[in-house]
Structure formats: C-alpha cells, structure tokens
C-alpha cells in the first residue's frame, strides 16, 4: 500500500485522497459533490482510469453531500470504468446518501458497501 496523497485539499469544498491497493484504487471524498464540483471529481477519477486504475472504490464514508448533479458524475464514471473493463464500487453508510441512491435506482447499477475495506474485500479480492 502506498501512502495516501491529498489532492487539492482546500479547493471548492470538495477534497479527495487517493490510495492504491492491490486490485483497485480507493478515492476517499469529503465535502459537497454538486454541479460545481462534479466535473472535478469526474476528471480526477477518469484521469486515474486513463492511467490504468480502472477498478475504483469511491468512498463517501466521510462528511459528504451529494445531489443529482453529483449522481450524474458517478454515473458517467461508472460507465467509463465499465467500458474500460473495470468497475466503480461505492463505499457508503450515510443514510441520506443511500436514500438518494435508492430513490434514483442507482443502487441497482452500482455495488454499494458500507466501508471501503468491505468494498475491496467483496468486489476486488484476489
């Protein structure tokens, strides 16, 4: 495991830390994912995907706000990763965010686990 490196910690209320595990990379997000920041999240994750990290765990375990614009970014990342032969898995136990995923039926197309560790274990082990 390589040390976590913070990206743009103070920019626009959204920060993420990327760490690279054996079979997937984990992006831990804190802050607001909305129309303002969704594009930045998307480009960062797509950048990782372009660099070969096509298995990604997007961890929303911290203090996260998500709305439909944020969901749009998640969907487009998911699609790209799928095309590239990888997968996007969410780690989340925040009831508000989970409800949003259920409301929009995204829980049917994206795997969700309570923690990043569990997500790695269940989806990317071996």
């Amino acid at each position, binding site marked *: 495991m390589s040390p976590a490196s913070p990206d743009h910690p103070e920019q*626009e*209320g959204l920060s993420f830390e990327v760490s690279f595990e054996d079979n997937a990379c984990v992006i831990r997000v804190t802050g*607001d994912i*909305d*129309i*303002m920041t969704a594009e930045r999240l998307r480009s960062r994750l797509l950048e990782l995907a372009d660099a070969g990290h096509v298995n990604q765990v997007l961890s929303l375990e911290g203090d996260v*706000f998500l*709305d*439909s*614009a944020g*969901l*749009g*970014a998640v*969907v*487009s990342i*998911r*699609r790209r990763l799928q095309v590239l032969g990888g997968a996007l898995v969410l780690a989340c136990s925040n009831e*508000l965010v989970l409800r*949003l995923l259920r*409301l*929009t*039926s*995204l829980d*049917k*197309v994206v795997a969700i686990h309570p923690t990043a560790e569990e997500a790695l274990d269940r989806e990317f082990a071996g």
Partner: protein
Amino acid sequence: MTTSMRETLAAGGQVGRDLLDVDWLATPLGEPDDWPASLRSTVQLVLSSKFSMWMGWGPELTFFCNDAYRRDTLASKYPWALGRPAHEVWSEIWPDIGPRIERAMSTGESTWDEALQLFLERSGYVEETYHTFSYSPLSGDDGTVQGLFCVVAEVTEQVVSERRMSTLRDLGIRVSTAETVADAVQAGCDHLASNPESLPWVAAYLFDADHNATLAGTAGIEPGHQAAPLRIGADDPEPVWPIGELARGEHVTIDGIDRRFDDLPTGAWAVPPEKAVLVPLPRPLHATPYGFLVLGANRHRPVDQTFFDFAELIAGHFAAAITDATAMEQEKERSEALARLDQAKSDFLANVSHELRTPLTLLLGPAEDALTDERHPLDDAQRKRVEVIARNGNRMLGLVNTLLDFSRLDTLHDESTFQPTDLLRYTSELASMFESAVERAGLRLTVDGTLEGEVYVDRSHWAKIVLNLLSNAFKFTFDGGVAVTVDGDGDRAVLRVTDTGGGIADSELPRLFERFHRVRGARSRSIEGSGIGLALVAQLADLHGGEVSVASRVGEGSTFTVSIPLGRDHLPPGQVVDEVARTPAAETAGRAWSILEETLSWLDGDTGGSRQAEPATGGERATVLVVDDNEDMRTYVTDLLSDRYRTLAAHDGAEALQVLQDQPIDIVITDVMMPRVDGFELLARMKQDAVLAAVPVIMLSARAGEDGMAEGLEAGADDYLVKPFAARELLARVRVQHRLLQLQRVAAEADRRTVARELAIADELQHSLLPDVEERIESLEIATFYRPGVEGTQVGGDWYDVINLGGGRIGIVIGDVMGRGVRAASVMGQIKAAVRAFARLDLTPGEVMENLDGIVQDVAPYGIVTCVYGVYDDTERTLSYANAGHLPPILVHPNGTASRLLIDGPPLGSGYLGFETRKVSVPVGAMLTLYTDGLVERRGTDLGRRLDELELALVEHRDDAVAELPDTLFELLAGEATDDVALAVVKVHSSGSAVMRLPVSGDLGAVATARRAVAAQLRSWEVPSRVVADLVLLTSELVTNALRHARGPHELRLRHVEREVVIEVSDSSPMRPRRRQVDGDAESGRGLTIVDAVADRWGSRSIADGKVVWAARRI
C-alpha cells in the same frame, strides 16, 4: 615526445589558440610545455572531441573546454573562463555542482545527472537551463586524482519544449469539451495554470461588438489586478494593453512589465515576468479576433520564435474551443427556439380549437332547434338543408375536439399513470364497444391472444390506441372483418389490429404516422379525418416506451402493430402505481368515446352529442329500468348505463309495471309514446302506489320545448329529457337521481312524500357540494354560510369553495349557476369540480375563467354562470383574481376603508376570452366577503343601494368574530330573502411565517451558497436536522435545475410556516419543468425525480415574467 604543448594548443583550433593566450604562469599549472603527460594528453583529447566537454586540473581545477562546450554552454563567458578556477567560472551554480565534483574526486567514481535544472548567467540574464552530465576523476602521472573531466549535453530545449507540448496536448482535450464560451475560456485558463513554469500568469480577454475587451479568464493572476483589468474600453486613451492593435489581429510583445506593474505574480519563479506576449484569438472568417491572451512570459527563458510559436498554438486551441462552444450555444439556442416554437404551435392549436368550438356550438344550437321545433316545422327541402348543416357542424366539432386532444399531447407525459393491467382482457373490453357498429355494418370483429400476466399501461392512453386503430380499420373495411390480437413476444406485449380493407400503398407507409398526414385516394366510409389518429397512436405508444408499425398490401388489408415493453423499468418511477386496475374499460376510456361516436356516425349519418364516460358517484350499483318500445333506443340506453348501473329493460309501461312489482328498482327511464301503457300512464300508476311513488322517473320524449317539459313534470316525473339527447346528459341526469336517492335513504327515512323531505334533500345536496372546512390554512380564517331559498323545494346553483394550492397559496371561489332544480345543481357540481381541477394546475385566475368558459358551454349551453376566482398568496399578502359577471366581493381593509373586486368579463359560457388577472394587496387584518345574489337582490330595491348597505355593514362589523359574521350579515340584509344565499367571509391573519429571500447568482457556486444559507437559516429556525438535510437537498436540486434550464435572474425564497417549510426558486423562463424518464445510466434528469420523492408536495406556477418552482416539506 617531439611536440611541445604550446604547439599542440596552437593546432587545437580556435579554443586551442585562445588557450595559448592564457597567462598560464599566473595559474597553479604553470608553463604548458612543463605540464605532466597525463594533463597534456587529456587536454588534447578534450580539444579534439566533438562532444561538449570541459575539464579542470590541479588544486583549483583550472578550467579547460572544447569548441562544442564553448558553443552550447559557455556563451558569453568565453574566453574569459579559460584558465580560471572552475568554482569561479561556475560560481552561480557551484552550490549545485560543487558537491558532485567533490564526490567524484574523493571517491574516484563518476557521477551522472540527467536534465539537472541549472540557472546560468551566460546570456546577460538568469537563464533556466537543463543539463545531462557526468563528472569523472582524472589521474595524474603518479596515479593520484589530479583533475576532473566532464562530458555534458545541454537538454534545455528538449525539457522546455516537452513541457510546452504537454500543456498544448492537454489544452486541446480540456478546452474542447466546454459548452459555453465563458466555460471554454476559463477551462483553458485553468489548464494553463498547471504550467506556471512556462507561463507564470495569463489573462484572457474577449472583444464585444465595439471592440471593448472584457476579462474572460485568468491563470495565476487575480482578476482585476492592474495587469488584468476586468474591462479595457476601446476608447480608453491609455489602455493597459494595446487593444487597438490586437483587434486588428496583430501580435504584440511588451517589455519591462515588471517595472510597470507592482506585485506582478511570479508563477513558478522568484521574480516576475519581464515580458508580456499578447496574441489574438483568431476568429474564422472574421477580421476581428474573438479576443486575445496576455501571456506573462517566463523571464528565465528567451522570448524567441519558439515561444511565439507556443503562444500561437495556445491561442489556436482557445479559438477552436470558443468556436466549438459558440456552435454549441447556438445549437442550444436553436433547440430552445424550436421547443418554444413547438410550444407556440401547440398553444395556437389549443387556442384555435377552443375558439372554433364556441361559434360551432352557437351554430349547431339553432340548427338543432330548427330541426326539432314542432311548432314551426321545416318543410322537407329546408329540413334536408338544415340536416346537412347540423351533421357537418357536428363532424367539425368532433374534429376540433380531436385537435384539442392532440394539442394537449405534450402534457400527456406528465399526466400519464401506468398501472398493471390485464391487457388482453382490457383490450377486448375496449373492442367490444365496437361490436354493435361492426355488426351493423355486416363485418366480423374478433379478439384473441396469448398474452398472460400484467402489462404496465396508462389505461386511458391504451384505450385511445385501441379505439383509434379499430376506428381506422373499420373506416377502410367494407367486407370481411377486423381481427384484434394481444400476444406476448419475449419481453414485449404486442397488439395487432388486422383488417381486410383496401390496404395502403407502399408510398404512403413511411408517412403514415406523421401528424396531419392522410392517406390519399383510399376508399373509406368517411371522408372525415384530421390525419391525427395514427400520429396520436404513435405518440401514445412512445409514451409507453413502445413503437407502432404497419404492414399492408393493396387489395388485401393492413395490420397495425403496437409493441410495448413488459415490466416497469422503462417508465418514470413517479408515474407508476402498483395497484392492479379494476375499473372497467368504459370508465377510463374518457374522450376515447368520441372516437367510437364518430365511427358510429359513419353508419348513422348523424353524430348526436358526444358520449363521454364519466365515473359513477360511488356507492352500490343502482338498478335502472329502461322502458322503450323501440329496440334500438332500448339497447342504446341500456348499453350506455350498463357500465355503472345494473340495467333491466321493458318494452312498454305494462311490462315495466310487472318488473316493478317483481323486484326493487331504483330509477326508471321511460319513453312517452308506447303501445298499451304509455309513459304518462306508467307514471300515474306508480304515483298511486305507496312504494313505487318514491322511485324517481326520468322521461324521454321527442317533444321539445317548455310545454312538453311542463307536462312531464306536472305528471310527477323527476326529470325530463328531450330526444335526441347527448349520452353525457342522460348519464348526468341518472347520476343526479341516483345521488338524490342515496341521500334520501339516509336523510329522509321518516318523511318521504312531503315538501320538508325535499327541503332536506336540497339542503343536503347543496351542502354535499359545498366544502367542509377541509384543509387547515394557517393564515386565513374562513366562515361560510349557506341557506337554501325559502321555497325550499328545489336546489339552487350557488356554491363556494376553498382550495389549498400549496406553497402558502389558497384558491377561493364563489359562483352562481342561474336557475334551480337538480339541473342547476348538477351543472354547479361539474363547474365546481372543473374549478378545482384548473386551480390545481396552478393556472392564473384569468386562465381559470377562460377554461371554465369552455366547460360552461359544454355542460350548460344555455345557462348563465357567474363566478369569482381568487388566489391568496400568503407570502406576498396579495389576492389575484378574475371576476366573470359575479357581484363584486368586498374587501374591507384594517383601517375601515372598503373596495370591491370588480367585474371584468361577462358571465361564463359566452366565449369571452379577455379575462384578466387583477391583483390587490390584502394586509393582515383585511377581510374579504364573497356572496351570491340572494344576499342583496330584492325585488323593487336598487341593487347599488343594497351593495352600499352591505359594504357599510361589513365596515361596521369588521372587528366582530369572523365565525359570527355570516349570521349577522344574513339577519341584517337578507332576513326575508327568498332566493338561496351563499356567503363566505375570509379574514387574513398573520401566519407567523418567516421568510428568507436570497438572490441566486448565475454561477455554479451559487448552488453551494444557497445550500449553506438555507441550512443556516433552518438551524436558526430550529428545524430538526433530518428535515434540514432534506431541505438542503431540495435546495440543491431546485437551484441546480434553475441554473441549468432557466434564464436568470433567479431568486430563492424560504418560508417557514407552522409545520412546513417551503422553498421557492423563481426564474425568467416560462417553460415548466418536466420530470424526465431516466434510465439507470443517464447522467442527468434525476433532479425532479429526487424532488418528487423528498418533498411532500411540489409544483410550479407561472408568474409575470417567468415561473416559480416550489417544494414543501413538513416538519
């Protein structure tokens, strides 16, 4: 050794000769001819090498180099450097290279450095350079390390150009995805910010039409900085940047900017740029560029041709991105314009249809009167002419109604409700409506299929699909028949309607489902047709996620196929309900009836009225006995009623009396002229029987006019209908009788035959149509009053209603249907329901009136209806209203002044379309009184004086308890009233609501700003955190939606009433938001789905110059 060192040097080219000129005696190395062999051979090696090299020898590492090193690296330090101590030659980088030299000399091992950044002062400035080099120790004659040898390659050009290439490559990718010009420019700048080495700072400007330049993006410099002013005017005498030259497309380089501007940003370096390079952003096919870039150039690299090329390429990327974004903006505008055009077309269609209906109705009435007038009968020749008028007028009315349906197609998306349906069974129920028509035409109709299980459909849409296809098939088929099948096919349900008609030419097939397209030259039953039916089918199939197709052979027939997906995943989740539909086909078919009606008319040559299915009023099914000697009529009426009522039939009065003796009958419908026992005799005998006397009787007669009706009613008929009658009218009459019957059973157990009973019924019927104070409305205190007329035997047509529209807005309506009896009451009931429906659509009062006008023309073509509809807005404390011929409601202000809500249009039903919405302010303490004419009209008394009296009374009693006011007013003014009186007093209280207003700026950061402001405000209102989270999410969605889809300025309003918080976002776009169908992978379109799920209520309404989208959440 034969050659001296000096000779060797002399032969060593220019550098060798320059070395000869060095005063070697002043160096630790002394006379060259005395140098040790190892030094001499190394110097010779260095001089002759084409690789760039230098070496140092002796205690001070005295400096030697060759011609390649001189050219590539030393530049102006040559020949000064020759023979100097190395630490002096490279004093500026000694801290970097000193330790490396030390290591090489002390360990005897070579060093290797690749692309080491070194700042050299060889060109008159501190230059950023990159070198790949190796230091190797040199041994003296005695084998000890005496010197140092360096092979070096300068890689500055490669490093710098790679850096620039990477910037350019990414710039192309990033910039090209922007959707607006502003985004494109800012995205480009954002990217340039990632190369602060080459470009410490950048400012991007765009020209407007007058060549003024506006700052559109920056990198590394604050917008508004002295060097990056927000605007540079074309007429600025001393512009910060020479925009005149730039507007002409010229490139400009400006020196000495570090002296000109204070605090210039330095980018990756310690010192600011010294030069700015200004490049225009070329605009294709235009002399004036889009704008220009100001590039603060890295002062550690020369500003040379390669930099200009770099700048040019950046400008090219920016210009291309702006061109793309402009195209996208134009595309978006075009599609918005198309959407507006489409909307305008639909509106036009709706308006035209609506306007056509009025004169058509007015034309048909007299024509039909003329045909049925027995006192002044038409002679045969005239009759035929008028019949032609009436028949074709009715057809035209049918077409106009279809057009109206079609123009409403766009709103069908929102109105659809998909529910699981046994499609085979439902389809066969629908098809069965055609049976009699098909049989009469001597054709066969079969329904068959293999589909099992349930399919999600909107039942009224499906009815239209089936009936339109059947009607179409029937229209073109003269022999054989029509076969309907409903099959399962994998994951789809497939409806096929096959006919044995004339078929359709191949050339017609492609356009068959287009709007207004009509097949030419085909033999058909009717020349009617607007070319809408099949287009409607296609659109409705599309709403179900399905499609429609046709296969046809001329001379053999056609098969139309509608295929829709099974399951529900393809449907908008908010419009799917899971209860299995049980209502029969006819009830959901709605306007689809008119299709059937039209088809029937092809056989009859007469359309009659439109048969509109209406839901039964509930309760158990009543039994209706239909008595008529004409078999067709009997069948027609029983068919009409059979969906809602149990029906029995009798051939004449005698048979009817037999049936009445045998079993309980709730309602009798009887013809007048019949053999044996006719209608009047049947009625008379029933009235003599203690039990049968209470059974309501509706008489059907061909005798028009007041006389016939009076005769029937005198004989004791409960209602009287003139043939030909509209199906809808018969249904309405039966429904009212049924309802009266139900009320009677509950309320009038004891007294069946007296006037008192009827009074009770009237009272109850009226009250059942008036609202209970159903919804608690925080800020309004409402007291209502209704008293039937003294005559009491008949119901009146007065009504009032209070409708909570949500978002702190309340609709208040009062109206009067002139006339009495169940007819007026039934009309009133329908109009009241219509007001509710229009109010819930959040139409403005003026629009409500215009729509009501059409309804009144339908349900009471000869009636007079007056009405006032107002909407109270608790936030604005205003009342918007429109008044159609009704006595003016009186508004008493807290200070005791009074005003009247004046009439601005004639009574409803006259086809007037000019109703305006007026707005008055209603402060806390204001009191609005709405009333009907029974309160003020007195025979022999001037109405104006009565209104003045009412106004005085209201002012005088304005501080009385609201609940007592209606009684007080009634006593004061209407003690001896004979007419019925309806009265509503509404007083405005403070709702205790708190309001926050927040202007929303146009940039995307406004969404987060709004969320934070809402959260902070809600916390200060001590709203529970779970609710705050929901409201913050709603805020995010509504504001995002507004920024994405609607023009600004936007404003957010947050309102807190006792148990509810309402968020409203206003904008300046008239289009209403529409929930879109979203598949699992679409990137957007979820916003309103989320709003729908999280808010308790949400909606939108038009305002003067835009709309408000609101969502409410209970606390």
